């Protein structure tokens, strides 16, 4: 069914927008940015900051574009002197009681006040009277710090805790210019850090990130959170080769504009002390570091020797490309496909917002390339175990017939400690690939930081090993994806680049799960 549309004119340009679109959204779609503080696409619209006023022909007063839907034939100006004057003066009002403490404010560089002042303000302050003072540096929960003086009372945080998490921690107390944002109880909900993201100023800042890096030094990369089967779309901010924070990125079909607090801290695992940085071989019961090529060759020797007697444990944490390349290798080895995936770590249940009980990012994708037989069953007869990422073989002594164990993973664990060959693999932030989330949406993540020297993703290892069995070696994730798309209906007609910023759903995927 075609959506009803409305024709309007914005700054002299004709724009067609779906019926019911708000002026601010129609303008954004037409490339016209309207300044705002209180408006947020996923929250109710109180229209209180008054920054987004626009001129609608035939209306005596300027209209708030965040709460005014487009009407057929509407003639809108966002650039008239009347609007420009209003924006300038509303901004002036917004700033008079603001402490203007940018040099010591961690929001500096990504502050709505600074940005709009650059774009619409640039005047000397006329306010020479005493400012209203409010509570500063309040630790309102494990993740957040509140400075009420910096707050411009846009009420986004109140609406988030009322409408999204329904935890109701925030409120605006008092009235007039003494109105003050307050937490009435500890802000300790699983989504609390989103408050720091949606706060347009430096009132709510994230404890984990405060004073770590000035934001203008940060570089940004599009990625997908690996924390659960949701696959929240994120941006990873990095500085000097280190990830510094993860932020949600808008994807209406997956995570709107949010992500959970646990997911947000997963960047810390990249430089975790348990991280496997170098390949190792077991010699005389001890693990010794070796060069990547030595480890690679030793693993290949074992794979060739045991070939179809190999039992493989797959992982729901690796990319589609990893899983596909591995499955192809096993096929060439005439070994059984990797066994069905292990249960997800416990601790969560599906919640009403984003979090999924399945805390792996790619069960849906990897399952497409997995067998059903239990790894533990297969182990009883196998002579070689290939374990990917999981701690699936913590007690090797139970399987005396096993001649060798190869462990490929990102972090150390009992299985890795008893393996004959340990090959570190790259983590999600260190290479590019795709995950398929629980809705069947295939989403692309890009490389944020470099992997430790010599460490490569699983698909590269698998594709290089398969050369020995007469297979082709892939040069890029995109190339793996191309092969995968021709072979598997879940990826039919997709291309790696075509996944774009918000991913694609296979036609066969269950659309009813769309958020």
């Amino acid at each position, binding site marked *: 069914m075609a959506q009803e549309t409305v024709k309007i004119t914005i700054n002299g340009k004709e724009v067609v927008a779906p019926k019911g679109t708000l002026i601010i959204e129609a303008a954004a779609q037409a490339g016209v940015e309207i300044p705002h503080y209180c408006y947020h696409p996923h929250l109710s*619209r*109180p*229209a*209180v*900051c*008054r*920054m987004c*006023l626009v001129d609608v022909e035939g209306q*005596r*007063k*300027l209209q*708030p574009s965040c*709460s005014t839907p487009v009407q057929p034939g509407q003639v809108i100006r966002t650039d008239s002197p009347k609007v420009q004057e*209003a924006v300038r*003066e*509303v901004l*002036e*009002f*917004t700033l*008079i*009681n603001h402490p203007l403490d940018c040099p010591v404010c961690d929001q500096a560089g990504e502050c709505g006040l600074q940005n709009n002042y650059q774009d619409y303000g640039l005047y000397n302050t*006329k*306010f020479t*009277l*005493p400012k*209203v003072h409010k509570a500063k540096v309040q630790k309102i929960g494990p993740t957040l710090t509140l400075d009420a003086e910096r707050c*411009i*009372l846009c*009420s986004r945080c109140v609406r988030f805790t009322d409408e999204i998490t329904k935890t109701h921690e925030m409120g*605006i107390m*008092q*009235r*007039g*210019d*003494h*109105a003050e944002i307050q937490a009435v109880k500890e802000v300790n909900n699983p989504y609390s850090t989103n408050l720091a993201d949606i706060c347009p100023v430096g009132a709510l800042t994230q404890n984990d990130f405060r004073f770590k890096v000035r934001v203008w030094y940060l570089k940004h990369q599009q990625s997908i959170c690996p924390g659960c089967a949701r696959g929240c779309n994120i941006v990873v901010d990095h500085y000097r080769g280190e990830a510094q924070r993860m932020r949600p990125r808008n994807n209406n079909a997956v995570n709107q504009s949010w992500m959970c607090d646990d997911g947000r801290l997963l960047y810390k695992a990249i430089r975790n002390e348990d991280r496997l940085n170098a390949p190792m071989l077991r010699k005389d019961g001890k693990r010794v570091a070796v060069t990547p090529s030595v480890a690679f060759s030793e693993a290949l020797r074992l794979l060739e020797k045991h070939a179809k007697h190999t039992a493989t444990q797959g992982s729901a944490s690796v990319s589609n490309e990893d899983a596909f390349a591995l499955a192809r290798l096993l096929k060439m080895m005439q070994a059984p496909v990797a066994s069905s995936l292990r249960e997800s770590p416990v601790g969560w249940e599906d919640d009403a917002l984003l979090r999924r009980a399945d805390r792996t990012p790619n069960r849906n994708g990897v399952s497409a390339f997995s067998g059903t037989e239990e790894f533990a069953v297969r182990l009883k007869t196998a002579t070689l175990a290939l374990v990917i990422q999981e701690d699936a073989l913590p007690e090797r002594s139970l399987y005396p017939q096993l001649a060798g164990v190869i462990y490929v993973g990102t972090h150390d664990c009992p299985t890795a400690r008893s393996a004959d060959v340990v090959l570190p693999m790259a983590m999600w932030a260190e290479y590019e690939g795709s995950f398929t989330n629980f809705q069947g949406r295939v989403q692309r993540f890009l490389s944020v930081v470099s992997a430790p020297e010599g460490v490569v993703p699983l698909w590269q290892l698998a594709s290089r090993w398969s050369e020995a069995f007469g297979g082709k070696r892939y040069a890029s994730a995109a190339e793996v994806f191309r092969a995968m798309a021709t072979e598997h209906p879940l990826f039919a007609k997709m291309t790696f680049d075509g996944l774009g910023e918000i991913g694609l759903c296979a036609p066969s995927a269950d659309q009813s799960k769309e958020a």
Partner: protein
Amino acid sequence: MEKKLLTKYWHDPNHKMLDGYLKNGGYAAIKKALGMEPDAVIEEAKQSKLRGRGGAGFPAGMKWSFIPKKTDKPKYVVCNADESEPGTFKDREIIHKDPHSLIEGIAICAWAVQSHTAFIYIRGEFTEEAKMLERAIQEAYDHGYLGKGICGTAFDLELILHRGAGAYICGEETGMLESLEGKKGQPRNKPPFPASEGLFQCPTVINNVETLAVMPWIVLNGGAEYAKLGTPESTGTKLVGISGPVKRPGVYEIEMGMPLMTFINELAGGMIEGKTLGAVIPGGSSTPPLTPVQCEQAKISYESLDKLGSALGTAGIIVLPDDFSVIEAMTVIARFYADESCGQCTPCREGTGWLYKTMKRIYAGKGAAQDLQMLSHISAGMKGRTICALADAAAWPMEGFLRTFPEAFQKAVTPKQAR
């Protein structure tokens, strides 16, 4: 001099009790209305051209006609008894002397729009008045003028008295609805208007006490009869309050169009001994002041006061003597709006505070010449850019005082030695 429609029996101490009210012909209007089609009642209200007496002056009958006829939702009538505009005290008088007129007016309105639940939102400080109304409501329930099947008909009407708790902004109709819903009294964006989505998101009529209390007269005598009184644009009578140093301050019911000075000199008895008229605020503190010369030209009507750059507002006249500092007067007014801003819209929250702080500095003798320009700048920045009219209500008197008393302001910001 006075024209007593609403106040006709106010001299009778029993009129406030149901017995007295009935003796004086009370509750005949609702009986008559219940015998009419609801639309016919709305038509009478329209014919009267009665403009809402809360200050904004929107035609009352029109407001009633906006209530949808066909809806699955309940409809509500809300009586605005949150009288808080400085200088205004007429509704309090109605509650004291004529509570049953109000209840009867509410019943008429409820019948006209087919609502079965009405609220009176009374300002929290009116504790005694709340008790008076509570008693009158109980009387009305006891005698079948409220409750199940009023006046022996099949029409049910519940009337709930709801007390505010100290916030001027709850007099703004959507602020009042928020407050009635148990929230901060922060006005809502319009549209949607209360007639379609008001109290609890249901169609709602909100009328001022005086507007509703005069409805029985209109129903009994006909809208056309009411419209014959007053001027074409300001029909009927109006309760006008007057305060300040006049001999007989108080509330008087007059026919619209009376010359302002006639009202001040004849009804209010003129200035008290030794005082001379300096300025008049004609309709509550948000209406710009008039000079003595303007007062001579002014009539008590919407159009006359509009023409003079002020407004009839609530018709709460405040008389300022010429020996009273207009700087102090404006400082008091600015303080009020700063205190009462609900704080949601930026221009109002910040602007009202800024105006007050600047006025306070000038009043303290520490102002500078550029402060005057600043006051105009702030006022202009506040107007027309907020959800409700409180920002405008603060800016109008500011601009009015600057315009009307430029010398006084100039003098106030001139250093003493330079004067």
